[in-house]
């Protein structure tokens, strides 16, 4: 019997779901093994609950979403949070440091119509999440890897160590040591393929903190390198700013700044 796969979206840009459609060649490996039960970006056909695997994109940022995620959890055997929004709160969690009303008054003609929670938070703050696929967006190879492992009946596994290890395995030269550029690689989880350092750009942490991430120590090192508190804050105040280790840095060096 085919595995019933459902893809849901909360507060997000759809980019992670798009990675599934971007699989193109690889998606053929999945056909005949999975059945799309719910995937609004791809088809309007819906199948009855329950689902075997629910991929959840986006953060929770409204009251309705709080209820909806619980329903999805109850109806799914495996719930996999995909992307920086679902796993860390996403770029929209930047508003967690300020008042929503301030923004909505400036942006919307009728701000009273806007009904959001005070904070944008990851799925795991609300329900039990079986697996997380990190990134902004997720790496389609890693997503396929996890799905393939689940389909074949193997405990899904992805590395949780630093990006540095991936850089060294790929043969990338350290841009912090050889170029003096700040990079979040030493505290960020591997899995992206070390894309940014490969192109001589510092990691900006879209995969979020690795296991036992020493974000505060790296921030301190950046300060010692001569970066301003504001610069350091901005490095950590990105796609995964609301993850605990990054959040601590942002609060320490400039939580109240815009």
């Amino acid at each position, binding site marked *: 019997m085919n595995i019933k796969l459902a893809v849901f979206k909360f507060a997000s840009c759809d980019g992670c779901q798009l990675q599934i459609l971007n699989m193109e060649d690889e998606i053929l490996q999945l056909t005949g093994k999975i059945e799309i039960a719910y995937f609004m970006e791809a088809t309007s056909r819906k199948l009855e609950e329950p689902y075997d695997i629910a991929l959840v994109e986006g953060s929770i940022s409204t009251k309705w979403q709080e209820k909806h995620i619980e329903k999805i959890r109850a109806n799914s055997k495996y719930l996999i949070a995909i992307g920086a929004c679902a796993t860390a709160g996403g770029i929209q969690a930047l508003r967690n440091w300020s008042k929503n009303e301030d923004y909505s008054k400036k942006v919307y003609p009728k701000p009273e119509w806007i009904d959001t929670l005070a904070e944008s938070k990851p799925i795991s703050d609300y329900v039990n999440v079986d697996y997380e696929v990190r990134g902004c967006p997720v790496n389609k190879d890693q997503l396929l890897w996890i799905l393939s492992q689940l389909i074949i009946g193997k405990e899904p596994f992805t590395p949780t160590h630093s990006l540095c*290890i991936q850089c060294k395995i790929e043969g990338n030269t350290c841009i912090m040591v050889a170029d003096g550029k700040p990079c979040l690689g030493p505290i960020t989880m591997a899995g992206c393929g070390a894309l940014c350092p490969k192109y001589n750009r510092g990691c900006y942490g879209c995969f979020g903190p690795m*296991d036992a991430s*020493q974000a505060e120590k790296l921030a301190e090192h950046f300060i010692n390198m001569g970066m301003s508190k504001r610069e350091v804050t901005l490095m950590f105040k990105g796609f995964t700013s609301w993850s605990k280790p990054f959040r601590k840095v942002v609060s320490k060096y400039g939580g109240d700044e815009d």
Partner: protein
Amino acid sequence: MHTRGLPLKKLGLVIGDWRDLERLFKYLKDSGYRIIGPKVDGNVIKLKELKSLREFPKQISDHQAPGYYRLEEGDFFRNGDDSPKKYLFPPKMEIFKVNRDLSISFREIEKVKIAFFGIKSCDTASITIMDKVLGERGDSFYKHFRKELFIVTENCIKPGENCFCSSMGTGPRVQSGFDISFTRIDGKILFEAGSERGVKILEKLKLPHANAKLKKKFIEVLEKAAEKAKANFEKRFLAEKLELAIESPIWKELAEKCLGCGNCTMVCPTCFCFDIYDEVFLDEYSKRVRYWDSCFTYKHAEVAGGHFRPELWARYRQWLLHKFSYWKRQFDMLGCVGCGRCITWCPVGIDIRKAVEKVLKWVDENVR
């Protein structure tokens, strides 16, 4: 110790110039070796295949300091972020495939003869260590790559700021584990053989013996280099002394800046930890792949039901004590060659020499 000669067939030091080094290079290339040597790759020197000796970074220097590496114009380089380990113990390597019918296909290993050309004494010593760690313990892949390995070592006339091979007894003059060594002295190249096959090849080059004056210069230059490549500790009783600090609170202090990123273990020419993943390709096969791993990762010492080293300082201690202490009991040698890579490539510049010094000081002050 670093000036000890090699009594092989009494060939001794022979003298030539850069063209003779090119002849040696060509001889090895024509003998079917894939020549791996230092080459500028972007802003670092890496060990890569050399098609010609012109690719050898003759006019380049690497400025190294803790957490710092820059290439600049100069006349001598030390090393980069990779080491011979990359070729003998590849960072990722397929071991076998399990096919749909559950049959197993082992990986066809490419039959290739590798010659390392122009690696330094520290890296030559690292191969001797890896022979013991992986070779003698029966790693068939290592043995395959190692079997036909030819090693041409460059004696290190100008050790860098992070170098301490002299304290580890691995350089700057190569002592063993090489086939031919060469040394750049006064625009000349001095050659020495370290193995029977090295002698045979050098004899083919028909080079004259170095005169007494040049031999004296050779010794002087390398003795000066040896003085430079020293840390403030002795190798004697190092393993035994450091182990006395196992319960010391000093490890927390030493690991204060550590990020647990694992860079030191990746660039270390003797760190040999690996992990094995099964990569599933539906409809096709599943691949069992070996990847480099690091004792700094959180999961490294995690086991069913617990964790040996949940604290980062304990992982730092494990790494340092393994290199400088446990290695001795395990392999009857030390695991560090003093190449300084872990100091250079640590993003926050933690200096292992200073860490060892501090531990020794703690032992002196606290253990009776």
